[in-house]
């Protein structure tokens, strides 16, 4: 953990937002429910902003509204202060050249080679052939595909295809990169590679990234800030660390659980002793986000409230570069004292969840 602090990225500049979505609403024809129900977000220059949500939450609809592939019914899309909705056809085309986009299924032309695919946005922008060739070479180098320039997409791996997708998206030097589930079709290792590449490009090119995903891993790995989307509404947003260490909504809590896990090895609960008469047994998940010493909290609880505390499992992880720890303990003791101990820990700024209910039927392996 300590070592990774060294290559910490300078905190994103908090200047005026590069992208502002203001009260975006969209209802598809023939549909009764709104796909987007008043979404407002601000993306600052140089940050990686994630939008996470379950399938059908409206993530794709939202990101497609940014470059107006989808026209919102109402609401504004402001890029560097410019209202994209008011632009005429040519001006919109020009504005779109300043916004790169990568897709879950890559969307590469099968009829063009890697180099040909990367050249496409340059051709569309009317850049002369000689300049194009130079720029394509540069972009191939940027994504590490110099040796695959003449290959057709059909002969590339998923990760290579997405590298081509990224190079193509960056061809016209956009300030904003949109990513619609760019890693959802990739295996975990390739996902990590692509995410690392996106972060590296953000740092190197001072790029701003807006990405949507249904995977907690993506948000946890590269996003600075996140918005949780549910039924077309942003239900929570803020720094990734804050949102997922102190989730306010069930959805955010469930995404957070994907990351922290329940951490109850199979059979653990069955092996625990039964509470003595007059006592109770609760299984608690304690989330440490500050430097509060784990042992101090546990031993204090046991001393002050006369509880027996069995540590079931423990783990340290990080969101971005910020570490956090999760401890699962079984607490035995007088019900009043157990409740007091929980209050005390919460008072020390710890997240404490009673997961006993979850353990009755469904133990997580």
């Amino acid at each position, binding site marked *: 953990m300590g070592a990774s602090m060294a290559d910490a990225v300078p905190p994103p500049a908090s200047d005026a937002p590069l992208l502002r979505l203001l009260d975006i609403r969209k209802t598809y024809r023939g549909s009764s429910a709104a796909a987007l129900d008043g979404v407002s977000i601000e993306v600052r220059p140089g940050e990686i902003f994630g939008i996470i949500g379950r399938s059908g939450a409206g993530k794709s609809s939202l990101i497609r509204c940014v470059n107006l592939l989808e026209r919102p019914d109402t609401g504004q899309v402001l890029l560097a202060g410019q209202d994209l909705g008011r632009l005429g056809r040519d001006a919109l*085309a020009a504005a779109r050249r300043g916004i790169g986009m990568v897709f879950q299924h890559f*969307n590469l032309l099968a009829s063009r080679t890697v180099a040909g695919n990367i050249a496409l946005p340059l051709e569309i922008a009317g850049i002369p052939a000689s300049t194009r060739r130079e720029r394509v070479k540069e972009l191939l180098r940027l994504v590490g595909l110099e040796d695959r320039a003449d290959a057709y997409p059909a002969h590339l791996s998923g990760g290579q295809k997405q590298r081509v997708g990224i190079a193509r998206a960056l061809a016209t030097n956009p300030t904003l990169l949109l990513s619609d589930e760019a890693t959802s079709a990739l295996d975990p290792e390739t996902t990590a590679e692509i995410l690392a590449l996106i972060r590296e490009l953000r740092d190197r090119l001072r790029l701003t990234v807006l990405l949507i995903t249904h995977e907690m891993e993506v948000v946890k790995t590269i996003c600075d800030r996140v918005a949780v989307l549910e039924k077309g509404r942003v239900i929570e947003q803020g720094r990734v660390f804050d949102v997922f260490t102190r989730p306010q909504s069930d959805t955010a809590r469930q995404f957070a659980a994907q990351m922290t896990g329940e951490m109850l090895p199979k059979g653990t609960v069955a092996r625990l002793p039964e509470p003595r008469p007059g006592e109770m047994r609760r299984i608690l998940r304690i989330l440490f986000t500050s430097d509060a010493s784990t042992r101090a909290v546990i031993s204090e609880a046991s001393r002050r409230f006369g509880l027996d505390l069995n540590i079931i499992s423990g783990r340290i992880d990080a969101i971005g570069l910020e570490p956090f720890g999760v401890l699962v303990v079984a607490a035995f003791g007088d019900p009043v004292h157990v409740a007091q101990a929980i209050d005390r820990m919460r008072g020390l700024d710890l997240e404490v969840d009673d997961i006993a209910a979850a353990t009755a039927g469904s133990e997580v392996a």
Partner: protein
Amino acid sequence: MSTLLNPTMQILLLQSAGETAWMVGVAALVAIAVGLPLALLLLVTSPGHIAANALINRPVAAIVNAVRSVPFIILMVAVVPFTRLIAGTSIGTAAATVPLALAATAFIARLFETALRDVDHGLIEAAQAMGASRGQIIRKVLVPEAAPGLVAAITVTLISLVGYSAMAGAIGGGGLGDLGIRFGYQRFMPEVMAAVVVLLILVVQGLQSLGDALVRRLSHRQ
């Protein structure tokens, strides 16, 4: 066999083959030249596409379907005034080419449209996200990506045209099919019929192989 060794008969066979080639070739060229823009028009004006427009799409689609639903032998007769306008006459090889081109255009337009529709919509969106105009989407995405399918459509059309051209005899168009009917059937010369059939089989096989080879070359999918 003796009949086929007869120089007159040989010349007649060659001449008929030439007429077939002419009718099929000219009709196919017209069909491709008119059919591709027509197919693109049908596609991009269809609902949800890049230039959706029911006012254009519905009547054009109706005309194409109407031409396609008229049996060729009837179409030939029905368009005689139009044929006279274009070819200056209503009988002969040139005159037969007009209804052939008309039928082939409607036929290939639908095949082209299907091939173009097969292009993944994601590619169109990617191009739109790059700021491509509709013309650029057509030229740089739709047509190149559909190229294998377009070539396959051309192959099918050529082969169908060879078959249709046999009916051209009805208005004095000549060609191999006509030769087969006149000599092989009406004058009881089975060798001529056999020669015509063998020739047609070879032509069709050749077209199909050529088309398939070209499709393979254009296709970079695997």
